[in-house]
């Protein structure tokens, strides 16, 4: 007979305890930060301000940077960007990183790419680490079993200077997903389903642990997609306990431990899971079989419906915001979303730009053509993703179908002042935000999985990939 654990802990409890340097009566913990990642949009200013304040990066070996947000993604690019003033962000970030001895994955380096693609790919994020980045989608990296969260630039300065952050301890939430996701149904659809049900504040104040058989069944890249969308739930962050898939993914990565230290690390990482009997402040249970291909119809990621659904009618509580979204998106309550004519299609971003995403989209595009008049763009998440995709001939599939095949970066996930899809243009996009003007002034964004984007690009309208395959 085994003795019950007298004080079962959640995964978060363990990570909190392992990183707690000091705590005070105010409920604030001084938490050790293991990795800081920076990008040229919000990281350069942190390095610059740090220096202006007469401070230094305390441990530059544990700080990394990449160029992703502003860098041009056209083939043949250099430091010039289509965004006015963009070059300065790149040059100043590079110079500041060099001055502080921070490793940076720069333009021309095939390791360069979107921070939340690069970090797992390089083995910079590891299970059990605390990882911060002045980027709201840092929760993506929680998929590796790390405690990873987005911060502002001032907090980044704090982490750089002190190797710690002062954190208000979040509450805990577990989202258990059991069952099996249907064919053609992805982690993106699961995330959009959670957003549709629980809203853009559904996780507020909480660290969300995803668990259950459907989560265990997800491959690492799919877990990264799911955790990425946690930013849209408003939570402190998202995390998935590391398992054999995580260890297999990380083994041999450039910054992952090697040899005896690797074995020691894996033994430690196996302890990083929620104990039986541990309790959460909140728990949500979902059956994966209830999830189908999803798409957003409005201007918040929570305004998501099944691809074969209709634009909902407003309830009294949300009438004003509902009407604003209806007007902005030029849709009508009760109208099916399937069949809405699109002008553009985009595959990329920290949500869905990894090799498995490109493979699944390519499987739909193979032997087909993008509809006349639709502008379609694919932006691999990193130089290494691009290289791997090209080795499999995926670039040819995209190009032959009529997609542009770009250099890695955040690209048109958001509008930085250069490239836009155009005012009132309807775009189907594998990204994470459909806010007003997110992808360009007055652009109408529908977010969905790469499968839905690919199927829609071919159809010329929002389309259900399951029907195309049939």
């Amino acid at each position, binding site marked *: 007979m085994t003795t019950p654990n007298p004080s079962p802990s959640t995964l978060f409890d363990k990570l909190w305890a392992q990183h707690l340097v000091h705590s005070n009566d105010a*409920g604030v913990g001084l938490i050790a930060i293991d990795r800081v990642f920076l990008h040229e*949009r919000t990281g350069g200013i942190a390095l610059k*301000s740090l220096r202006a304040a007469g401070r230094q990066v305390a441990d530059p070996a*544990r700080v990394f940077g990449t160029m992703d947000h502003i860098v041009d993604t056209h083939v043949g690019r250099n430091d010039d960007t289509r965004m006015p*003033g963009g070059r*300065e962000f790149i040059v100043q970030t590079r110079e500041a990183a060099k001055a502080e001895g921070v490793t940076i994955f720069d333009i021309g380096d095939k390791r360069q790419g979107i921070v939340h693609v690069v970090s797992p790919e390089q083995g910079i994020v590891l299970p059990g680490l605390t990882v911060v980045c002045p980027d709201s989608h840092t929760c993506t990296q929680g998929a590796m079993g790390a405690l990873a969260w987005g911060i*502002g630039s001032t907090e980044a300065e704090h982490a750089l200077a*002190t190797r710690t952050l002062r954190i*208000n301890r979040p509450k805990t939430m577990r989202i258990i997903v059991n069952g099996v996701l249907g064919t053609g149904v992805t982690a993106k659809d699961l995330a959009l389903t959670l957003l549709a049900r629980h809203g853009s504040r559904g996780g507020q104040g909480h660290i969300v642990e995803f668990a259950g058989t459907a989560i265990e069944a997800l491959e690492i890249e799919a877990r990264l997609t799911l955790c990425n969308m946690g930013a849209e739930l408003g939570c402190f962050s998202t995390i998935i306990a590391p398992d054999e898939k995580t260890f297999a993914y990380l083994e041999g990565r450039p910054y992952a431990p090697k040899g005896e230290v690797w074995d020691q690390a894996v033994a430690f990482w196996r302890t990083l899971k929620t104990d039986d009997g541990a309790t959460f402040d909140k728990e949500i249970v979902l059956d994966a079989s209830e999830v189908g291909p999803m798409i957003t119809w409005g201007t918040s990621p929570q305004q998501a419906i099944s691809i074969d659904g209709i634009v909902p009618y407003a309830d009294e509580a949300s009438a004003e915001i509902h009407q604003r979204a209806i007007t902005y998106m030029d849709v009508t309550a009760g109208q099916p979303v399937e069949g809405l004519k699109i002008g553009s299609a985009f595959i990329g971003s920290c949500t869905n730009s990894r090799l498995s995403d490109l493979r699944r989209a390519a499987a739909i595009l193979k032997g087909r053509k993008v509809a006349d008049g639709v502008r379609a763009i694919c932006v691999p998440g990193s130089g290494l993703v691009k290289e791997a995709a090209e080795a499999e001939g995926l670039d040819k599939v995209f190009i032959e179908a009529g997609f542009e095949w770009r250099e890695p970066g955040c690209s048109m996930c958001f*509008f930085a002042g250069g490239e836009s899809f155009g005012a009132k243009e309807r775009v189907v996009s594998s990204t994470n935000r459909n806010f007003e003007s997110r992808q360009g002034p007055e652009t109408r964004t529908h977010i969905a999985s790469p499968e839905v984007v690919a199927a829609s690009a071919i159809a010329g309208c929002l389309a259900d990939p399951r029907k195309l395959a049939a």
Partner: protein
Amino acid sequence: MEAFVRMTAVAAPLVRANIDTDIIIPSREMKSVSKTGLKDGLFAGWRYTAVGGRDPKPDFVLNQPEYAGVGILLAGENVGCGSSREHAVWALHEYGFRAVIAPSFNPIFYNNCVRNGLCPVILPADVVAAIAAQVEADPANAKVTVDLEAQKVTAPDGSEYGFTLNNEEDRIALLNGYDAVDLTLLHKDAIDAFIASDQGQRPWVYL
């Protein structure tokens, strides 16, 4: 950091849910590697008639003369969601805002407020709506007071509403304008000791 103790000011009602940081400052308005030069880009998409232009849309709240001297923003649920860009807070501060009152905040935006002398005040949605209604009736004169020392908001009609920050440490930092790095470096010995011990426990962390 500039301290915040209390303020009585004109309040701008923008009580919509999910005002994201792209709305507060569009990416295209972040033109240099700087924390300043951002106030003209504040709410640019809602404030001006054309993208990149500076012709005011007359119906936008900040363009109405009664809201000159505004210091407090009244917002809806989940204010500051989306991008972590601290430029949203820098732009609000540079414009003259010193407090944001909303039923709920995005957590990164909330921290960014606290670190930049902008007081984040959480009040129930019906209270925010009631204050907004009073303000809209007489914007220039119906002033709102946010008092962080007493932890209360006084509405134009004199009603008082208590509030608390996420923790007492944030309140003390805001009241005194403390720099969080300075506060943390008081624990430098504890940090060094933690790392020395952790290097033995988790050597793979240290590169």
